[in-house]
């Protein structure tokens, strides 16, 4: 089982157990991003996390966005990069840039 498949299975299991779940997927990277495009992070409404979209630098910010997407149902495309003040706040120290797509698991 690939790690991406594993995260999907975990997310599906949470959803089947009745918890709202959002999926975050790295869709584009520039520079020294630790996880390639296609890497996934699943987030549940109670705050469970599976997988990763970075080396841990932006997971907190992505999890916050995921909670919002669970409530609204609307997907989001998040930008993280060194030119982005928010990225400094969440500590993307590696100097990479990436885009993360966040969607609700309906």
């Amino acid at each position, binding site marked *: 089982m*690939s790690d*991406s*498949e594993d995260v999907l299975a975990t997310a599906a299991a949470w959803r089947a157990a009745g918890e709202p779940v959002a999926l975050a997927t790295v869709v584009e990277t520039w520079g020294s991003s630790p996880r390639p495009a296609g890497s996934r992070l699943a987030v549940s409404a109670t705050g469970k996390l599976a997988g990763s979209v970075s080396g841990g630098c932006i997971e907190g910010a992505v999890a916050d966005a995921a909670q919002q997407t669970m409530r609204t149902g609307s*997907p989001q495309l998040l930008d993280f990069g060194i030119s982005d003040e928010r990225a400094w706040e969440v500590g993307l120290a590696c100097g990479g840039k990436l885009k993360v*797509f966040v969607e609700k698991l309906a």
Partner: protein
Amino acid sequence: MTPALLAALQAAQAAKRPVALLTRLSDGEQCLWPDAALPGALAEAAEAALRDDAAANLTLDGEAWFVHPHNPPLRLIVVGAVHIAQALVPMAQTTGFAVTVVDPRRAWATADRFPGITLIHEWTDDAMRALAPDARTAVVTLTHDPKLDDPALDIALRSPCFYIGALGSRRTHAKRVARLAEMGHGEAAMARIRAPVGLDIAAVTAPEIALSILAEVVAARRGAALARRAAPAPAAAA
């Protein structure tokens, strides 16, 4: 992601069927290829993403799409249900490989020693023929017994598998090369066999040897410089 799409994606994965997930980033609209008919450019991007096993971005009619390949796991065929195999199999599983162990010696290839692993007890050439190694398969022979290793290597060398490793010292390997030459394999084929198997990390214990093998398999898969071996010295008296 809709429940129907998630179910279809998981069904494809369970059936080991390659599919690409396409997502329109403006609104999250999604579909699976080749299940859904798609405009040419999207279908081509999906096919390329699966072939290269790499995600891609595409802009079509002003809309950004993310193309996410979902290939079945890489396969690892381990010939020889030996102690090193017991260390290698769980490591390889954790790394994402679908693992099969081949050993006709039923006392070795037991569910006790390899819990939850597909075990094949046929003779190694029959087993290898049935498993049909492809370009997403690695083959490692560990029996140290020519009667078992050689037929498996013979089939592996006739396949497009991306990694062939054989346990044994340089001296053992020189004898093996001579036997495989008698079976009709030339120098180019022989150069595909990594022996002594594994990256040279001076491994001693079974788990250390397993680690060196798995590291070399990954290096070969990813095209790392570490995976390139110097051409073997011309055959001298071994």
